[in-house]
């Protein structure tokens, strides 16, 4: 945040309903929203893990027959969304529920656009161009990372035209975000860590973004503490409900922060690389985050230092072996900012995350491909919120180093 005199708007109309086993009470929420037939969007893995069972049981017992669509692939696409819309229309659904990770949640949002607007979904791509309310929506995250349950955007792949469609509108805010940490117990370690780093990136990028404000800052800082303190444990002990609860909350708080403040260069590159190679969003952010932090160092040293002082001052190093987060009041801004980058690297190590794009399975990057990726990333909206000006050359350097 630059100055307290700068105008801003912080919005979040979504009710956040948090608690262990809250998924078993979802039928009451549907009733509160006036729904009688719920479309439940999820994916097959979640059905197989029985993660959807408490919610489905609650709906069935209440007499609100759930219509389950479980055909969502990772990084959902338009064809899948269209199939779900057709199914929901045929069944006469009047509420949309998503139970899953970011892919499922984004799919449900796009389905809701299609349920309430006639015509090709591509025609509704854009920012602020939806004109009316959609059907009531309850979003239940089963990963702790994307913050999509409180965000006003959805990204859907348009395979036919080889691009990702971006939808941004206040009508994409859910009515209710239902956070039940127990649903995350089965999330495997590598996905826990990868999705968690998406949330960490939301904290750090929104905190220094050009549109950051006092409210988003407070959420980013607090979510940052929760993540540094709990993500390693959530990764290694999946059934630690304290760690699951903390990271789920933090992911939601970081979602509120970036929804109102934007992200930055790390997300711009992650969207581009994910678009070309299908790499996981959180994992790609994880690899790129230290590089993005270093790139922005000259413009954001003071802010990074502030973030570090907040983190280190919270005492996270008492429970977790972060050598870079032992509070030392004598560090100047430059030293504290650098300590933050090292802390991120320590977090990646504690969570067993890869440190290079090569480890994500990306094949050799030729000069041509590097240039193409850098140029596409320059057109990603996330880059507009980055604190310092970014050049194609900066991105080329990051891609080379991160490989």
């Amino acid at each position, binding site marked *: 945040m630059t100055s307290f005199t700068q105008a801003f708007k912080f919005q979040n109309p979504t009710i956040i309903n948090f608690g262990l086993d809250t998924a078993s009470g979802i039928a009451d929420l549907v009733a509160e929203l006036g729904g009688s037939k719920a479309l439940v969007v999820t994916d097959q893995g979640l059905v197989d893990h029985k993660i959807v069972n408490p919610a489905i049981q609650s709906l069935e017992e209440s007499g609100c027959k759930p219509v389950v669509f479980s055909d969502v692939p990772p990084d959902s696409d338009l064809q899948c969304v269209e199939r779900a819309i057709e199914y929901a229309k045929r069944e006469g659904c009047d509420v949309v529920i998503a139970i899953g990770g970011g892919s499922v949640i984004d799919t449900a949002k796009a389905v809701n656009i299609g349920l309430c607007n006639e015509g090709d979904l591509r025609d509704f791509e854009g920012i602020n161009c939806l004109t009316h309310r959609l059907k009531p929506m309850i979003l239940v995250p089963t990963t702790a990372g994307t913050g999509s349950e409180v965000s006003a955007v959805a990204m859907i792949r348009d395979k036919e035209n080889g691009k990702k469609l971006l939808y941004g509108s*206040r009508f994409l805010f859910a009515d209710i975000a239902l956070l039940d940490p127990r649903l995350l117990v089965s999330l495997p370690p590598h996905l826990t860590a990868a999705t968690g780093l998406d949330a960490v990136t939301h904290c750090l990028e929104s905190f220094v973004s050009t549109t950051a404000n006092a409210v988003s800052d407070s959420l980013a800082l607090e979510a940052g503490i929760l993540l540094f303190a709990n993500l390693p444990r959530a990764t290694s002990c999946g059934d630690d409900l304290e760690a699951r609860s903390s990271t789920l909350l933090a992911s939601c708080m970081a979602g509120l922060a970036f929804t109102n403040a*934007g992200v930055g260069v790390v997300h711009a590159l992650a969207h581009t690389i994910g678009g070309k190679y299908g790499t996981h969003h959180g994992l790609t952010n994880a690899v790129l985050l230290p590089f993005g932090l270093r790139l922005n160092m000259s413009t954001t040293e003071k802010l990074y230092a502030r973030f570090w002082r907040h983190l280190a001052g919270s005492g996270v190093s008492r429970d977790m072996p972060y050598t870079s987060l032992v509070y030392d009041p004598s560090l100047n801004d430059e030293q504290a900012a650098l300590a933050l980058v090292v802390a991120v690297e320590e977090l990646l190590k504690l969570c067993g995350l890869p440190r290079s794009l090569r480890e994500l399975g990306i094949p050799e990057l030729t000069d041509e491909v590097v240039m193409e990726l850098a140029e596409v990333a320059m057109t990603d909206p996330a880059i507009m919120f980055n604190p310092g000006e970014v050049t194609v050359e900066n991105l080329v350097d990051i891609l080379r180093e991160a490989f």
Partner: protein
Amino acid sequence: MAVFSSTEELQDVMSLLWHEIKESPDMANKLIQSKLIVQFRYREPEGLLTIDCSDAETMKIYTGPINIKPMIEMSMKADIAHEFWLGKVNVPMALMMGKIVSRGPTPKALALLPVIKPAYAIYPGVLEGKGKNAQMAG
């Protein structure tokens, strides 16, 4: 009070500005390379401006209703457009605050913002040429 008093005045100023942009190779070439058709839809007063670079060779500038399907539509109050050309609008912030509505692949349009930045310096002169003062809308 709105900066522009009529559709005609608004479209005149915007058209003149875009003709200046067209004459500046640094800006024009990159815009033409984008092959985009962008339509600006103004309100208070109403106005319509379409910039067509789809043939990758020339930039065509149209005011008023036209039978071309834009790839990107940007809708806003005319005052916001005025402030934008004075370099006073943080576009991502304006999008977040709902002051600009963008239909179509918004990122492609946002990517051109750095390209048209030099036009901020041209705009006050365009206004003055039309007998208007750049400070009118503060």
